């Protein structure tokens, strides 16, 4: 052993020194690599530290929005029209799925949906952060939900989200009023940037849902949970409970609304029922209705297009957006103007021979053989055109327009709903501006019986009717009865608003009301179909020509193509002694006002008074 040890002590000094010099090189190499590590450390922790810090936060803390249940929409008696029901969505969190392909394959089997559909959906969220959940499938059924919940551990990355969805208890009732919800779009998101909306949120896109969005939506809650790498909750850190939205009580009465919609089934048109003294709208419908159910979870292009291309225009709220010549309902305006401008007295007699010649044209009365001698009362009752041609001619178009405007025509009524149309009240100045042409006197004749350039909405006519019989107040139609916050406190109450008095004295208005009563109750009255047994009803019929061509003049109504048929109007009020309710019905291409629109109005009045009786009988 010792010999062995001496042998290794034989040292070659030169060789040893060379080796030791190489250690210096090795030292330099080590310093270089360690410096590299330090630089990298500095880069990660100091230079990019904030970024990584953010990433680690996102890794750890998941903030989940808790959606607030949207406020209910109630009728005037507090009956629920629209409420919420839980809707279960499948949500995908890419980050939580270590094996996305496998999970998605399983999911496609569970949903019985082609995987390409799912992948397409995922692709549309390509620029979404990986930790942000997004929806793969909305409103899944109960069985799918149970299956997924039971197989949760096999489906990492898949979660179930519960959202309150709209539940329309009465189907499409008042669909145009209520409107619908839709997913927020980029523009809205930008506009509402300071109000805590997120991508994927629903918001009101139309109607009450849109106008009262800020009351209905409530306040989102937020849940902060710490999750582990599998996305499983470790512990809840902090929760802010969502605040439900406010309940919205409408002035609408479900019964009346339903009656109106049933009566209008299969017809295109509008019905407005309103409290003549307060402007509370008891029913406001436009048919055909929109199918609200289709909008839940986003409407399909097919369903949208089918509504858009429907010739009966279900997407238009005809009560406020449909503009029709008022027809003979306009004679109320002409009559009032004639009395107030003292063009006629109640006793002035004008002879109707069935037509009136002006210039080189003959203006016919609807009754070809003429009414004979008529005064104002009879002219209104039997809707004599010749009488009003002559009165209107004396008044002139600008005077007529003044009265029409004072009764709320030619301007929006101020109802809460969006995109209300103003209609048109023609004047000399208007025509010069619009057509660069002077007004023709003959056109005044058309205007004075509600044809020609005249355009009105059903709501305007209803409001005009109310103003005629409520003592001359141009009352503003309103839809909102009250807003109640989740604590039950009323934060907004209905208050009647008057937009001024119409022209004319109370005596003149009484005269007209009397004549309108005769329309329904007396022999030869045009609105006799609306006659009620116990209640006295007053009203005015109207038939608005769609085309001026005389092509179809003598043709039977049923033989005229649908789109050329006349629009049928009926506007009425009751009881005549002390009016409470005004009802206006318009049926597009419905033909004659009295026979087509009258029965609809009658049903609503019947229902209204039956309800009132029931309420009175219930009292001790």
């Amino acid at each position, binding site marked *: *052993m010792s010999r062995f040890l001496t042998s290794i002590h034989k040292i070659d000094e030169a060789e040893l020194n060379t080796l030791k010099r190489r250690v210096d090189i090795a030292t330099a190499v080590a310093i270089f690599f360690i410096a590299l590590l330090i630089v990298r450390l500095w880069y990660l922790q100091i230079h990019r*530290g904030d970024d*990584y810090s953010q990433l680690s*936060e996102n*890794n*750890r803390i998941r903030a989940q929005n808790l959606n607030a249940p949207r406020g209910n929409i109630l009728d005037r008696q507090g009956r629920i029209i629209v409420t919420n029901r839980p809707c279960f969505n499948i949500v995908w969190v890419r980050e939580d799925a270590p094996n996305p392909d496998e999970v998605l394959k399983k999911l496609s089997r569970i949903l019985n949906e082609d995987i390409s559909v799912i992948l397409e959906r995922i692709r549309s969220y390509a620029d979404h952060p990986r930790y942000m959940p997004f929806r793969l499938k909305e409103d899944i059924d109960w069985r799918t939900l149970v299956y997924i919940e039971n197989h949760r551990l096999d489906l990492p990355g898949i979660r179930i989200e519960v959202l309150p969805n709209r539940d329309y208890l009465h189907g499409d009732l008042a669909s145009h009023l209520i409107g619908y919800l839709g997913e927020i779009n980029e523009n809205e998101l930008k506009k509402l940037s300071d109000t805590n909306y997120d991508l994927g949120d629903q918001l009101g896109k139309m109607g009450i849902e849109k106008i009262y969005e800020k009351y209905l939506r409530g306040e989102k809650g937020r849940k902060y949970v710490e999750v*582990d790498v599998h996305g499983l909750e470790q512990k809840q850190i902090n929760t802010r409970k969502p605040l439900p939205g406010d309940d919205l009580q409408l002035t609408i009465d479900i019964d009346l609304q339903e009656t109106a919609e049933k009566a209008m089934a299969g017809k295109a048109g509008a019905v407005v029922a309103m409290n003549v003294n307060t402007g509370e709208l008891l029913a406001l419908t436009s048919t055909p209705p929109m199918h609200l159910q289709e909008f839940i979870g986003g409407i399909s292009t097919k369903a949208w297009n089918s509504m858009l291309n429907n010739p009966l225009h279900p997407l238009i709220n005809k009560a406020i957006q449909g503009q029709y010549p008022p027809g003979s309902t306009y004679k109320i305006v002409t009559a009032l103007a004639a009395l107030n401008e003292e063009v006629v007295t109640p006793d002035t007699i004008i002879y109707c021979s069935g037509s009136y010649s002006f210039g080189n044209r003959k203006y016919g009365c609807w009754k070809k053989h003429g009414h004979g001698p008529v005064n104002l009362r009879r002219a209104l009752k039997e809707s004599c055109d010749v009488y009003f041609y002559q009165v209107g001619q004396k008044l002139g178009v600008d005077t007529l327009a003044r009265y029409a405007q004072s009764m709320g025509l030619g301007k929006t009524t101020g109802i809460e709903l969006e995109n209300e149309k103003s209609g048109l009240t023609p004047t000399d100045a208007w025509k010069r501006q619009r057509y660069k042409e002077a007004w023709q006197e003959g056109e005044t004749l058309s205007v004075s019986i509600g044809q020609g350039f005249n355009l009105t909405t059903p709501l305007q006519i209803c409001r005009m009717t109310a103003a005629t019989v409520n003592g001359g107040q141009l009352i503003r139609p309103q839809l909102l009865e009250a807003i109640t916050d989740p604590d039950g406190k009323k934060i907004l109450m209905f208050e009647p608003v008057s937009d001024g008095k119409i022209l004319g004295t109370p005596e003149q208005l009484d005269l007209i009301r009397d004549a309108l009563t005769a329309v329904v109750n007396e022999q030869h009255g045009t609105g006799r179909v609306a006659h009620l047994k116990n209640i006295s009803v007053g009203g005015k019929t109207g038939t608005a020509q769609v085309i001026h061509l005389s092509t179809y003049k003598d043709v039977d109504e049923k033989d005229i193509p649908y789109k050329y048929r006349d629009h049928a109007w009926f506007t009425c009020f009751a009881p005549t002694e002390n009016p409470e309710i005004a009802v206006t019905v318009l049926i597009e291409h419905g033909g004659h006002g009295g026979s087509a629109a009258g029965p609809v109005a009658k049903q609503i009045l019947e229902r209204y008074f039956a309800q009132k009786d029931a309420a009175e009988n219930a009292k001790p």
Partner: protein
Amino acid sequence: MFRFDRRLLLNFDWVFLLTVVLIAIMGLTNLYSASHSGRMLGTPVYMKQLYFFLIGFGLVLAIVSVDYKVLLSWNYPLYTAACLLLLFSLLFGKSVANTQRWINFGFFYLQPSEPAKLALVITLASYYYRKDTGKGFSLRELTVPMLLTGIPFLLILKQPDLGTALMLLFIFVSMTLFVKLRWQTLAILTGTCLSAIPIGWKFFLKPYQRQRIETFMNPEGDPLNTGYHIMQSKIAVGSGMKFGKGFMHGTQGQLDFLPERHTDFAFSVWAEEWGFVGSLVLLGCYFFMILWGLNIAVSSRDKFGVLLAFGIVSLIFWQAFINLAMVMGLLPVVGMPLPLFSYGGSSLMTTMIGIGILMNIRMRRYMASS
């Protein structure tokens, strides 16, 4: 053989030992945090690691009492034993994650690739010691060392454990370059290696290994699967920022986002909880240890001591560098523990033995000419 010189005690390398203890303490602290939230059963890993350390220090004491030069006669038996263990583990080993890396010793699972690294260092040092290296090696003279490296290399590659296998190559290259190569030899070898890369890529790498490397080149390309580890590790390190999130407060580690957080990725946990400052302290300790180790090589009075010390230092250095670079996203993910810091008995024992040998060389620096 057991002649004990009092000078030995005087020359005991307290500084080096202290550095090792310091790293050990940091490592144990870190393991405590890393295994805290884990759902592991039995003895907690930091306790196990502590036992390994205590055994390791015992080994250091045992080793320093015997002159390292006996390794000159033990090198081939050691080498043969290491290779046999590798072969045994391949044939009968316990499979973890589809690799045959472990041998069950009842109380302890041995990972034979760890001692194999040290055995290679000792064998190469002995071999080069016996050769005259003055003129540099020719290709033919390199046949034996290449063979010596190649056998364990292939056995480990077969497990498969690319990281450790590459480590053997690193040792071979470092030590061979250290003893000097002829320029021609160097050129031929470099050329051969470069041309071997595509072939190796195609025929020798397992798909998962290829994917790891591909992922490393483009981690964002597949952040869900293989890129996940790199991303999460970088997030952990980066989010530590200046002073860290605090002991036991690293969210990446505590909430399971970090893979292998008590073994290969232990440093991520450390960097996350102690920040740039803490990481610098740990890095500083390693740096000091490496420099000190190289100084041990320089101070040795005989060629074997120089070669052996250099070999061991390069073994520790490359492991540390590769591990840290991998954790920081500078290198692809390969199985490579951080010496003294990562949990793992085999690696820790091997490193402690290496440290024992280094201290042994240090203690005997004045005794060469006795």
